[in-house]
């Protein structure tokens, strides 16, 4: 645990103070008592040791006294003296017997003393080298001669006193007692006054025996005795191995006088060393007692002292700890809290924990926490403001309005996107950015969604200050107050011009041919799929046209691809103009194009005709010359077509169209070929009919038939001219079989002109005769003919050419013609009225005719369609319609004629209703002029 410096300092001061007032006196007391006790123990130990040493010295003395006694006894044995004297006498050599017998006898004597404990051996040496030996070995051949001689020398000058030589090697080298305490004594001739040395008595005393005794002396643990001889050699030491060795001179020099005691560091240990001298020998008995052993009793005192001290310290520690936990630490925590608050290092949720302390300090903690609370609230609102400000200046354009949509604020990004500065927009409505690309409904839906869900998101086109419209991704969020009322709207907008452009680009690449900008195969197939599905639902046919340019490869090879590409572009343009809205022109690649037609007729043959018509239009268009740069080029296409015809497979359709295209190429190019043979037949037949029709006028194959019109008195009032085609091979062809074709091909115009002209010629004929000069002649005018700009002048020309009374010529227009551009029709009709011709409205009731228009039209007659007339007797609806038409005509002051009258009943009803003119089989079928004139008569 790491504490700030302040705390550490305080801890030291506080702890030191407490230590000084409590521990220090205790400590001083302990030290004083310890020291005095120690001194007493040491003094006591010295006294004890000296006593012990004195005892051991006495023991050793006793042993030596015994040896001394032994030596004295042996020295005074006469027999030994004699033997020595005899064996030492060089003049009188000894016999083997004497020698051996003497040895044996001395042996008997000596062994009587050998029972003395600790005795190793007793030897007698004569001056001439004989040896008598009793002891631990028999082998006396191996004698240390130098030692022996030295000992003899010593004894020669010592009179007959026993000399303690100290610890030495055994003179008998064979002995297993290698170190022995040696005592020697001179054996002198008995009775001789002067010292007449015969030999030497040598007594070896066992150091092992001494060891056995002294090692048993207990001085305390690790304490031991030593005994040294005059040469400071160890007679006794607990370690047998060092016996015989001299002690260090540094130690031996300390041993002076009879006794002493001192403390020393011996062999690395603090010891109390005491010694006592064995009188007159300079031998010392030494005791070595480690201080540890001596002071062992002190341990308890030390232990108690230290225990008290530790107890004291623990108490202090507990007190200090309690102080820190209860007082200092809480205060520190609060101070830390302030510091960290100042340094802004606190988590917002951080609160000071309740402290285990006094109530006063906890109050402080609570107040600190509530302070933090307050600061936190302040800081949080600041933070959210700052966040809002930062967030507001994002890369997205942002604008904030009030609840009424008045702009309050915009950001920098907004200015960059729209070009408007904040000054320019604040106070305005965001409507100022409108691009005009979206209608009112769009904005309505948008705001409805915002009101409903509080949010709208989507793409929208707006307009920059510089006028440029641009797409943006817009998010509108309603900001509501706590009551749920909208206070503001926040809009974020992102300029997606770039991304939209690239998206378009991608889409184009994916679905459009980059050269011609036409849909590519993929888009074609997609649309084909949809078209097939749509056709399946509606039943309306569709078609596929495969278009291949003939000899395109040659163009590419001769003029190059750039020119080829120019051709393809122009072909694409022309194709696009040839088709209807909703049809598809696609480029598959190379010079292959496909046109897909939809919403054709439900009837398959009719659909084929529609397809053919468009195909022909394409053929015509593509056959026109192309300006390719400086080249004028002609090009023909080959077209293969096929109808959906309930085929469900796109692939199959494409294949069929492709096959048809190749058939077209095989058949000589520059033509349209259907995949289905039946269809091809239909087309072929029609083509022939068209060709025949073109020739029919020149070949005078048309003929007019006349059907009589009568009044209520059954008197002929006129006729309707009806065209008939006398085909050289087919015979009479009904108008229904060629009129639509004529209308489609435009031949109707020339046919119409022929009919008008022929009718005028017939009127002229009739005018010359009194019986027929009042007859009126009705001529059908097709819509196409009517819309010819030259129509009125043509009519006028015919009237003038034939010099007829125009009042007798009645032009019948169909009601369906009135649907488009009614004003222009009225104008043309007025011009016709100007000429003087009558105008009749044919097939009245089948179309949609507004009474308003009818009133405006300058017509003279209504012609009730035969379909109403047919069921007039039976169908009450038809009755009502016919009645109404007649009443209406009367109210408009128009004549009414009913056609298709076939029975008297029908005629009677019409007469009863007020109709005055009739036409129908009841009065006569359409017949050639000769027959008609005959019936008049």
């Amino acid at each position, binding site marked *: 645990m790491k504490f700030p410096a302040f705390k550490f300092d305080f801890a030291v001061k506080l702890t030191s103070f407490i230590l000084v007032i409590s521990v220090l006196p205790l400590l001083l007391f302990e030290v004083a008592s310890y020291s005095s006790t120690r001194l007493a123990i040491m003094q006591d130990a010295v006294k004890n040791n000296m006593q012990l040493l004195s005892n051991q010295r006495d023991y050793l003395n006793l042993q030596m006294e015994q040896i001394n006694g032994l030596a004295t006894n042996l020295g005074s044995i006469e027999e030994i003296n004699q033997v020595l004297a005899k064996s030492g006498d060089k003049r009188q050599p000894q016999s083997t017997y004497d020698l051996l017998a003497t040895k044996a006898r001395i042996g008997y004597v000596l062994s009587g003393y050998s029972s003395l404990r600790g005795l190793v051996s007793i030897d007698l040496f004569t001056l001439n080298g004989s040896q008598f030996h*009793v002891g631990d070995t028999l*082998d006396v051949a191996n004698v240390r001669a130098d030692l022996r001689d030295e000992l003899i020398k010593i004894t020669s000058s010592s009179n007959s006193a026993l000399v303690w030589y100290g610890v030495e090697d055994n003179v008998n080298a064979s002995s297993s007692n290698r170190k022995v305490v040696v005592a020697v004594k001179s054996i002198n001739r008995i009775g001789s006054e002067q010292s007449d040395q015969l030999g030497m008595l040598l007594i070896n005393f066992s150091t092992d025996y001494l060891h056995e005794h002294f090692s048993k002396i207990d001085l305390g643990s690790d304490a031991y005795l030593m005994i040294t001889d005059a040469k400071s050699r160890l007679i006794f030491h607990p370690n047998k*191995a060092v016996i015989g060795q001299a002690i260090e001179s540094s130690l031996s020099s300390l041993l002076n006088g009879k006794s002493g005691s001192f403390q020393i560091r011996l062999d690395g240990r603090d010891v109390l060393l005491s010694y006592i001298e064995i009188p007159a020998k300079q031998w010392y008995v030494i005791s070595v007692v480690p201080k540890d052993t001596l002071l062992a009793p002190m341990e308890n005192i030390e232990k108690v002292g230290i225990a008290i001290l530790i107890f004291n310290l623990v108490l202090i520690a507990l007190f200090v700890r309690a102080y820190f936990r209860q007082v200092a630490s809480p205060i520190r925590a609060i101070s830390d809290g302030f510091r960290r608050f100042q340094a802004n290092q606190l988590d917002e949720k951080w609160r000071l924990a309740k402290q285990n302390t006094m109530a006063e300090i906890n109050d402080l903690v609570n107040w600190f926490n509530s302070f933090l609370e307050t600061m936190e609230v302040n800081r949080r609102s600041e933070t959210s403001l700052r966040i809002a400000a930062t967030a507001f200046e994002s890369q997205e354009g942002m604008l904030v309005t009030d609840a009424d949509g008045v702009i309050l604020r915009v950001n920098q990004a907004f200015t960059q996107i729209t070009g408007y500065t904040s000054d320019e927009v604040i106070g305005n409505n965001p409507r100022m950015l409108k691009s005009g690309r979206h209608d009112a409904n769009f904005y309505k839906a948008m705001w409805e969604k915002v009101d409903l869900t509080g949010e709208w998101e989507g793409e929208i086109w707006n307009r920059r200050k510089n006028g440029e419209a641009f797409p943006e991704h817009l998010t509108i969020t309603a900001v509501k107050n706590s009551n749920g009322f909208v206070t503001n709207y926040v809009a974020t907008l992102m300029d997606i011009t770039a991304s939209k452009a690239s998206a378009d680009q991608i889409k184009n690449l994916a679905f459009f041919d980059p050269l011609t900008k036409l849909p590519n195969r993929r888009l074609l197939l997609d649309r084909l799929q949809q078209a097939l599905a749509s056709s399946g639902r509606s039943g309306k046919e569709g078609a596929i046209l495969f278009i291949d340019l003939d000899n395109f490869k040659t163009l590419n090879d001769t003029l190059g691809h750039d020119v080829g590409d120019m051709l393809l572009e122009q072909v694409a343009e022309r194709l696009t103009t040839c088709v209807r809205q909703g049809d598809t022109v696609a480029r598959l690649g190379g010079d292959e194009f496909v046109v897909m037609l939809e919403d054709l007729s439900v009837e398959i043959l009719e659909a084929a005709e529609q397809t053919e018509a468009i195909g022909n239009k394409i053929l015509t268009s593509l056959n026109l010359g192309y300006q390719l740069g400086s080249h004028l080029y002609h090009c023909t296409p080959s077209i293969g077509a096929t109808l959906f015809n309930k085929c469900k497979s796109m692939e199959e359709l494409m294949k069929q169209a492709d096959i048809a295209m190749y058939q077209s190429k095989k058949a000589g190019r520059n033509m349209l070929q259907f995949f289905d043979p039946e269809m091809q037949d239909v087309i072929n037949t029609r083509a022939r009919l068209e060709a025949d029709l073109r020739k029919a006028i020149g070949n005078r194959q048309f003929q007019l038939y006349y059907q009589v019109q009568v009044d209520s008195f059954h008197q002929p009032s006129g006729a309707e001219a009806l065209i008939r085609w006398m085909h050289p091979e087919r015979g009479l062809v009904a108008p229904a079989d060629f009129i639509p074709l004529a209308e489609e091909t435009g031949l109707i115009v020339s046919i119409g002109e022929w009919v008008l002209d022929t009718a005028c010629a017939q009127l002229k004929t009739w005018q010359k005769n009194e019986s027929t000069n009042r007859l009126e002649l009705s001529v059908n005018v097709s819509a196409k003919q009517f819309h010819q700009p030259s129509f009125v002048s043509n009519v006028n020309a015919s009237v003038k050419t034939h010099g007829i009374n125009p009042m007798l010529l009645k032009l019948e227009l169909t009601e369906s013609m009135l649907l488009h551009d009614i004003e222009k029709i009225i104008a043309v009709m007025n011009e016709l009225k100007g000429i003087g011709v009558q105008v009749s409205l044919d097939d009245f009731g089948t179309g949609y005719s507004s009474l308003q228009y009818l009133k405006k039209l300058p017509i003279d007659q209504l012609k009730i369609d035969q379909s109403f007339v047919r069921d007039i007797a039976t169908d009450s609806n038809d009755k009502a319609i016919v009645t109404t038409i007649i009443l209406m005509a009367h109210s408009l002051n128009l004549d009414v004629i009913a056609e298709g009258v076939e029975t008297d009943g029908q005629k009677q009803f019409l007469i009863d209703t007020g109709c005055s003119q009739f036409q129908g089989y009841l009065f006569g079928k359409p017949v050639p002029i000769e027959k008609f004139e005959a019936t008049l008569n």
Partner: protein
Amino acid sequence: MDLNIARIIAIICFPLLMAGCGEQVQSVSSVANKPDVEKANQAPSIRVALIMKTLTNPFFIEMEKGARQAQHETGIDLEVLTASQETSIEQQIQLVENQIERKVNAIVIAPGDSQRLVPVLKKAQDSGIKVVNIDNRLDRNVLASYGVKSFPFISVDNEQAAYMSAKYVADRINESTEVAIFEGIRSADNANQRKQGAERAFKENTKLKVVATESANWKIDEAYITAKRVFDNHPKIGLVFCANDMMAIGVIKYLQETGRKKVLVASFDALDEAKDAIRHGQLASTIDQQAAQQGYIGVMTALKLLRGETVPETVMVEAKLITANDLK
């Protein structure tokens, strides 16, 4: 916080420690050359005690030499112990007792008596001490009665050797001659064997008549005194067999003192002193029973027992007849 308190304790305790260390003392060591620790702490070596009969017979000195040879070769701890006299059987028993107390590993013993030593040796064996018998054989019957099968025994064939020595002198006698036999300690088996060997040789020569069979207990001085008594009783004795050289030397001393130069003496042990006597014509024959060899083999056998090896029940050392011919 703990750290601080530790530091403070240290500061407080410092004077206390200083008080304890206040006295400056000299520092010395006790012994200059500390013994080699390894040597000092060597595993306790094998301790073998060689217990012999007396320190006054050179024969046993030879025996010790052989034993010491074995000691040097093997590094064992060898203790050589003797009684003071051949007859000090009680002393010898005491020596065995001491060794039991000392817990030696093995005892090699040349028993002074073939019967009296058995109980104490049995006791030694029971306390785990290996016992090897040399020189003088313990009595088998007594051993058996104490439940001891036998101790390995190393010696010479005393009967045969004595026969050889006695035969050598017997063969030189052509006329009727009185014979005296000086025995060893009668309760010793080897003494008995030697006597029998000598008797066998003397019986083979019909001219010989054993007139005296006395024991001088192996001792030189006792033999000298006994010879005086024997020759006083039988002045015509012309041939003497002594069971050991020491007794022979005692007898020869008497013969020389009394001028009986023609008396033939045969003996046993081949001591150097005996060989000298042969050279001087004082002694006719002796037997070298290779005491050193016995001592050596005795110790080695003890070691083998300690190692758990099987040893032969009896090892007979070759006994050699020594005459003047052998010493030329």
